[in-house]
């Protein structure tokens, strides 16, 4: 019996996540300092956890409406209108999902016929390309550039467009680069989306973690609410990764299509997580601002230290990741850099190519961790980089 004969071809053809490979090595080194974690270092604020416990005590252990608790959808509607602009009807324009990951999956499956093309910027979150493949779409990655801090580049999308493009996926602020999108670029991209009749899936999970300027949603631009699926969730800003709760907002016909898939494959998001999410939206914003302030200070420290040690690093304007360039100064590719840094200095960062080929030469380092760890990790990295440079000086570069 050959197992590969039984696995669907579009699944067996999926590449393994670069993160998974690296995770296997780091797991064997519990003493290593990890800057490879894609989630907040903070525990979920107690008031949010407590609301979930209270709901459990009250016996709230049932399914909910497939779309999510109406009380949560009402809170989402008010929160999104206040912070992002567009108004969505809690009755038929909002769907509560199991994290943004589920929302991305069902949005793509609801929209894509085999061969439809999906444009997205890269480096990007690890699931984008596989999710497109699993929906039988064709991925059209569009590079963002370190020269412009990996910010949105609408001209690059216009150049990359080709017949058959149906969907445009955005994630600003971006995991892993911290890139953001300003008003002028979003306006231009919105016009492009209307002109080319594209549906936009906008994953704005890091919106609250914007450090410079205001976060703007593409859904708030003229003509865009009708063609945008706005995705958001509680994992990052509210430090609720384990609760697995997110949501999609969009025109009723799109939310209806997503609902068809959601109701059969997921039924509903866990009720205890939904109860916690209600508390987060009602009373959690002060905690979000406190955490954002902490991330911002750590970001400044980490980016300065990377630049001091000669790893060219732009200032990420959002998210909690720094994305320094490692190859020019060390002559190591990003994978070799990460493996050697882990083995020789016991610090884990993630190769940029885990987030797509355009992450080449970079690594992702999370600054969502304590000063104690950041100070020690960057000191070790500095020694490692100095050592690699010294080795390079004794062995001239080839060519």
């Amino acid at each position, binding site marked *: 019996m050959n197992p590969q004969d039984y696995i669907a071809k579009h699944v067996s053809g999926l590449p393994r*996540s670069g*993160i998974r490979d*690296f*995770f296997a090595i*780091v*797991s064997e080194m*519990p003493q*290593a300092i*990890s800057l*490879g*974690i*894609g*989630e907040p270092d903070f*525990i979920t604020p107690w008031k949010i956890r407590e609301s979930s416990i209270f709901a459990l005590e009250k016996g709230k252990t049932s399914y909910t409406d497939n779309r999510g608790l109406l009380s949560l959808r009402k809170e989402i509607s008010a929160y999104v209108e206040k912070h992002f602009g567009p108004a969505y009807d809690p009755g038929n324009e909002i769907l509560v999902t199991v994290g943004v990951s589920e929302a991305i999956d069902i949005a793509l499956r609801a929209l894509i016929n085999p061969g439809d093309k999906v444009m997205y910027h890269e480096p990007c*979150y*690890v*699931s984008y390309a596989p999710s497109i493949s699993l929906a039988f779409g064709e991925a059209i990655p569009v590079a963002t550039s370190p020269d412009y801090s990996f910010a949105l580049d609408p001209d690059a999308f216009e150049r990359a467009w080709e017949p058959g493009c149906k969907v445009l996926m955005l994630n600003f602020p971006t*995991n892993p680069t911290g890139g953001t999108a300003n008003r002028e670029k979003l306006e231009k991209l919105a016009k492009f989306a209307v002109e080319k009749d594209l549906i936009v899936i906008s994953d704005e999970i890091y919106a609250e973690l914007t450090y410079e300027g205001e976060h703007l949603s593409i859904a708030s631009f003229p003509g865009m609410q009708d063609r945008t699926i706005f995705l958001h969730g509680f994992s990052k800003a509210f430090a609720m990764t384990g609760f697995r709760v997110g949501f999609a907002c969009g025109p009723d016909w799109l939310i209806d299509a997503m609902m068809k898939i959601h109701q059969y494959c997921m039924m509903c998001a866990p009720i205890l997580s939904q109860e916690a999410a209600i508390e987060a939206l009602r009373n959690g914003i002060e905690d979000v601002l406190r955490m954002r302030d902490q991330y911002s*200070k750590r970001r400044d*420290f980490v980016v*300065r230290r990377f630049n001091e040690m000669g790893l060219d690093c732009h200032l990420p304007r959002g998210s909690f990741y720094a994305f320094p360039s490692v190859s020019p100064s060390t002559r190591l590719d990003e994978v070799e850099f990460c493996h050697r840094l882990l083995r020789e200095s016991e610090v*884990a960062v*993630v190769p940029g190519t*885990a987030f797509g080929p355009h992450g080449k030469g970079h690594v992702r380092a999370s600054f969502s961790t*304590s*000063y*104690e760890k950041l*100070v020690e990790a960057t000191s070790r990295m500095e020694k490692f980089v100095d050592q690699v440079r010294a080795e390079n000086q004794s062995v001239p570069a080839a060519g």
Partner: protein
Amino acid sequence: MSDLLSIIQETGNPDPVYLGKILDRSPEDVEKELTFLKDEGVLMGWVPLINPSKGEGGEVKSVIEVKISPEREGGFNRLAHRISKFEEVEDCHLMSGAYDLLVIVKGKDLHAVATFVSERLATIDGVLSTATHFLLRSYKEHGHLLNREGENPEKPAVSA
């Protein structure tokens, strides 16, 4: 609160070299600000936070509600200062409500605390009454939970 103070509070590390590295300032510059903050009485010092259930002390603590007579000049201040000076007294606060001072007293055992209260505290002229409550277990001190919440050995070391 200044960046320096907030980072000292968070890290518990007063080393000027360490703090200078975080703040992108020279150790001398940090030392200078620390001295200024001490001179101004803003920064009073730092103490280790020891979990009493795991420490070596075996000490007994009590919370004492003290009623005192206010005085014509100074109100409660003179007596409060006097009580605060005993080395057995860890904290002393003027309160609103049914009593005047909340005093936290530390002793090597129950007998030592009882002796302090009955022979030293209660006998001070102006102390009208005391009500002593012995502290059984602490769960949070100075804003820090005493059990190690949030440590999750199953949290992945690398994630997307």
